[in-house]
């Protein structure tokens, strides 16, 4: 069973995502901030990370940089799932590296997201 790590500080999002992902047959782990997320990448070895940007303790951009430094981004698939408009230089750079995987939560439909996840992990 493929494992998905949700790095998200907003419990309403992570709870719904967890329910929906379990329903379509994935194992789900949740981290509530970037630092906790990084630890779980090492301990849980997920196949896919759903990463928020604006989070307490450590933000998503720092997490991405650290994952890149450790080479995790080559082994693990990443989807940025945020409500941040990509207008900051750092985020534009991320978008360009994974152009199809930068999603604005309020602009994406839940069923489309599930299909995308299935496709990535198939």
């Amino acid at each position, binding site marked *: 069973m493929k494992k998905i790590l949700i790095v998200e500080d*907003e419990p*309403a*999002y992570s709870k*719904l995502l967890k*329910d*929906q992902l379990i329903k379509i047959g994935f194992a789900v782990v949740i981290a509530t901030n970037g630092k906790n997320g990084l630890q779980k990448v090492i301990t849980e070895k997920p196949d896919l990370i759903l990463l928020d940007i*604006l989070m307490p303790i450590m933000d998503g951009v720092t997490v991405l940089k650290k994952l890149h430094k450790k080479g995790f981004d080559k082994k693990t698939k990443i989807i940025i799932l*945020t*409500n*941040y*408009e*990509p*207008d*900051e230089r750092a985020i*534009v750079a991320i*978008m*360009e590296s994974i152009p199809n995987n930068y999603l*604005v*939560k*309020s*602009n994406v*439909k*839940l*069923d489309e997201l599930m299909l995308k996840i299935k496709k990535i992990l198939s």
Partner: protein
Amino acid sequence: MKFAIENNLYKSIFDNTFDGLACCEMVFDANKNPIDYIYLKVNKNFEKFTGLKNVEGKRVTQVIPEMAFSNPELLEIYGQVTITGQPQRFETYVKPLKRWFLISVYSPKKGFFVVVFQNITDQKIIKDYLEDVRKATANVLEDLYIEKENLEHSMAKDEAILSSIGEGLIAFDTNQNVMIINQVAQTMLECDTKNFEDKKFDILPFVNEAGKSLSLVDQLQDVANQTSKQSINSFYYLVRKDKTRISVMLNITPIQINTEVIGVVLVIRDITLEKEIDKIKSEFLSLASHQLRTPLGICKWYTEAILEDDVFKTFSKTTQNYLKEIYRNNGRLIALVSDLLSVSCIDQGKVPNNPKLISVPSVIKKTIQGMSVLAKKHGITLHLEIMQTNIPKTYLDPVKIQEVVENLIANAVTYSNPSGSITVCVNYLDHEILISIIDTGIGICPKDQKNIFTKFYRSKTATSKNTKGTGLGLYVAKSYVTDWGGQIKVKSSLGKGSTFIITIPVKKEA
């Protein structure tokens, strides 16, 4: 013998004196009022000065009949002199002769008088001329005085303006000498006027973002090469003596007389506060959009989860409609936040742009596929016509062009009647890609056509047909298209439909 000699001497004096001479006898009426006089003897100069000939033995009223009206004072004065014996001297203008005379008159014997006179017409003319010159000079001097006063007022006003404006201002001549520097500029540059007098400047304490200093010589060269009076606006840092930096906007304008550049004016505006406000605004916007989108996004997904769940079908029709309504309106809020965010980014010049080499027809084809569901729902047919097979690829942000076309199609759907049709045409002409969105809808009245691209503008027909628009869609579309160097235009007639035409120049490089 002695008498003969004396007589000849007097005659010679009489004839050769430089003055005009006339011996006359006064004629009185019964009341002893002088009414005429008779020329007894006149000399040569009399004729020369008056132009009158053969007057001896004649009455003045015979010789100059108009005299009684033109110079009545003469008879009066001569009469007085004849009666009283008191000599008189005066100047007068004899109109019939058109001459000025300086006249001395005395009476050698009661009832007789002698007039000694000079023709002073030329002196008079010169005197009058000199008087005119004097008056003219006085007028000029007065004008000059007024001008000087005006100039002093104007200078005082200019000085007051220069010292009261919030910006620093320095004027340099072409030799880099300071002509004018106001107080603000002195404070900014930490110097006083004395430091500038007779001092040449080349390097000023301004550096650009790349760290290069502002060279006055280069700037003067730049403005000298310009034929127009264009000013240059540039962002610089002012480096203070303590090495701290202040963000400033420099405006450099040439001072020109006709086409010759005689110097430059440098206006320094401290924009530290504006920069700070911009930063705060941008941060607030980013945070606000995130904070607004989080709960909206949560509502969206939870509602979607219910709408997609099997349990949804077990709800009553009313409950199902309630849920759909919640979902639809939540979607409107999300769209509104997105539009506000776009407008704010446009206003701040921070529109993210990721141009890629794309085929515009392919992107539009995909967009139309996505929009066909919406059109079908409203009973409207949506066609695509690609007019040419070899439309070149161009560098353009695919997300943005899709957003613009989606926006225009969504408008066409909203303002069309059921069973209407929308045609999207893509063409290529003169290195430009043309996209036309043609609908058979309600149309836009001419007054609204001018304003529909204005931020938050909503036409009356638009508000009556669709109460839900934000008035931002076309503003955003126009901003994007203008940013690409293109144009967006509308042609419309009420009741017949509208055509929106976008032209985008093809770019071969990003």
